[in-house]
């Protein structure tokens, strides 16, 4: 604070530079004052928002906490998860076949795959759901037999064969397959054509090339958008409320129509969706790592691995023998 003040930092920095070995960069970090201003403003707004909701006399917190783990809600959550998992798995398989059909040289297959994507991507999902839900109105009976004759093998009521759950699952799966097909096709197109040629020159069949060479490489590109699709799917299950599938949102509306606590139950449902979508990013991370192998960047340690390393250094976990890392170069 005296007259010597201006020179003091300079000389200290000079000392730091002088004391450090030549190849260590001891830099004073750049300052970002505006970052702090923006962060403060945003942080305060968020605090105010939460506070205003928390102190709002019209929102009953007891209701929120009471219903968060209500058995009916939890069952609804489980059903949403089940629908998401099945719809994503089946639609991905369908999507792979559609993508293969669209890339095939056979013009008939090409056309059918294109038609499929055109129809299912071109109409609103909500309408498709209602359509499958009302299939019973369109065809009262589903009959297996010889068309245009009286011969039948069996005949059932459409509503017994296609209950709301199946109709909803069907709607989400068929719709998702159209989107997944395009993502998968994009992934397959991103693989260098030289890969197909190399496989062909080794005598690999087109099918073997597809499953062992093309798809594993395409998967690396496909996973991030498919992670997105899975999150969308989870949220889209709430649309099944229009055909009364008892997933979490339907259950919540049923409960709130009785106790008239609409906002509280929406908060309950939102908490669950947020929780589930957060959890979903974990498998995505590990899938990306797995399919990114051979691709330098993916070799970084996992968060769990880093945690383990931290604990090992702190002496909590037992040390592991050093891993032999691949080395560069090495000409004989």
């Amino acid at each position: 604070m005296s007259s010597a003040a201006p020179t003091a930092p300079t000389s200290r920095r000079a000392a730091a530079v002088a004391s450090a070995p030549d190849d260590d960069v001891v830099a004073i970090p750049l300052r970002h004052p505006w970052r702090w201003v923006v962060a403060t403003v945003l942080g305060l707004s968020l605090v105010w928002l939460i506070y205003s909701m928390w102190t709002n006399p019209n929102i009953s917190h007891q209701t929120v906490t009471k219903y968060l783990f209500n058995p009916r809600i939890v069952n609804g959550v489980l059903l949403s998860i089940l629908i998401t998992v099945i719809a994503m798995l089946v639609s991905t398989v369908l999507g792979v076949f559609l993508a293969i059909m669209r890339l095939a040289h056979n013009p008939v297959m090409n056309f059918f795959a294109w038609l499929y994507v055109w129809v299912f991507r071109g109409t609103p999902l909500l309408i498709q759901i209602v359509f499958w839900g009302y299939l019973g109105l369109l065809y009262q009976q589903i009959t297996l037999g010889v068309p245009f004759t009286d011969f039948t093998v069996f005949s059932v009521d459409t509503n017994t064969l296609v209950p709301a759950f199946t109709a909803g699952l069907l709607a989400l799966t068929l719709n998702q397959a159209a989107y997944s097909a395009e993502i998968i096709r994009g992934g397959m197109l991103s693989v260098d054509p030289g890969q197909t040629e190399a496989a062909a020159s080794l005598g690999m069949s087109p099918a073997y090339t597809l499953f062992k060479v093309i798809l594993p490489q395409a998967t690396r590109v496909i996973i991030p958008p498919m992670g997105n699709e899975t999150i969308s799917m989870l949220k889209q299950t709430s649309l099944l409320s229009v055909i009364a599938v008892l997933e979490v949102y339907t259950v919540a509306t049923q409960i709130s129509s009785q106790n008239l606590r609409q906002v509280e139950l929406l908060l309950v449902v939102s908490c669950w969706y947020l929780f589930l979508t957060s959890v979903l990013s974990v498998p995505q991370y590990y899938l990306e790592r797995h399919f990114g192998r051979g691709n330098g960047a993916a070799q970084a340690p996992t968060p769990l691995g880093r945690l383990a390393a931290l604990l090992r250094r702190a002496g909590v976990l037992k040390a592991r023998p050093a891993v032999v890392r691949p080395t560069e170069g090495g000409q004989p």
Partner: protein
Amino acid sequence: MNALTVTEPVLDAVQTGALVQARNVRKSYGHVEVLKGITLSVKQGEVMCLLGPSGSGKSTFLRCINHLESIDGGRIIVDEELVGYAQRHGRIYEMNAREVSRQRSGIGMVFQRFNLFPHMTALENIMAAPVGVKKVERNAAKTRALELLDRVGLSHVAQHYPAQLSGGQQQRVAIARALAMEPQLLLFDEPTSALDPELVGDVLEVMRQLAADGMTMIVVTHEIGFARSVADTVVFMDGGVVVEAGPPAEVLDDPQNPRTVAFLNSVM
């Protein structure tokens, strides 16, 4: 959709005992004729180097030999079999995918850009085709793959992914991968053109060794030194035709055609 027009009397395959025989091979992309009647033959154990300016059709011809490209006219015969087509009752039929794959498995190919499978280690790259195509038992395939890696001097990188290898190492793995199918013919399309100059030598050394071991090879290359010392025949192509062919001493050191002279002057 029979792509082949029969312009010459259909001959019963084989005559000369050559492993590869190309007769009057023609190929067009759209209206542009890229190969205008290539005729040449390669004997068992022979090394043929293909030279020529860019766009002369060297790669195209090489790719026709393992039917990566179909031909529009003429015949290519490898080991007494028409490539890509079956001949029955004097007529020519397109082969189905399985037959084409079977033929290709006997013809190895090494690419300018290596084309290793990036999601497999060097070892897995070499094992993939023997296990997947020839149904060789995994352990036997692995033993064989390690032998091949040793042969190209790369035992120490068996577990590395292609991205962790230098260009020269990748190309040598690619050669080992082709050898794993025990082909009777190896095709090389400018195998050293994508390499840093100091890595070219290692790859050429492996190829030299293969030639000495009696492998039949067709090599598209700009390495005149390699062609001179290893090739039995040098073929100079330009504009989709063979301009000059013969032993290296004749074609490289005493070229007769002015186009050959001009090309050699430009690369040497």
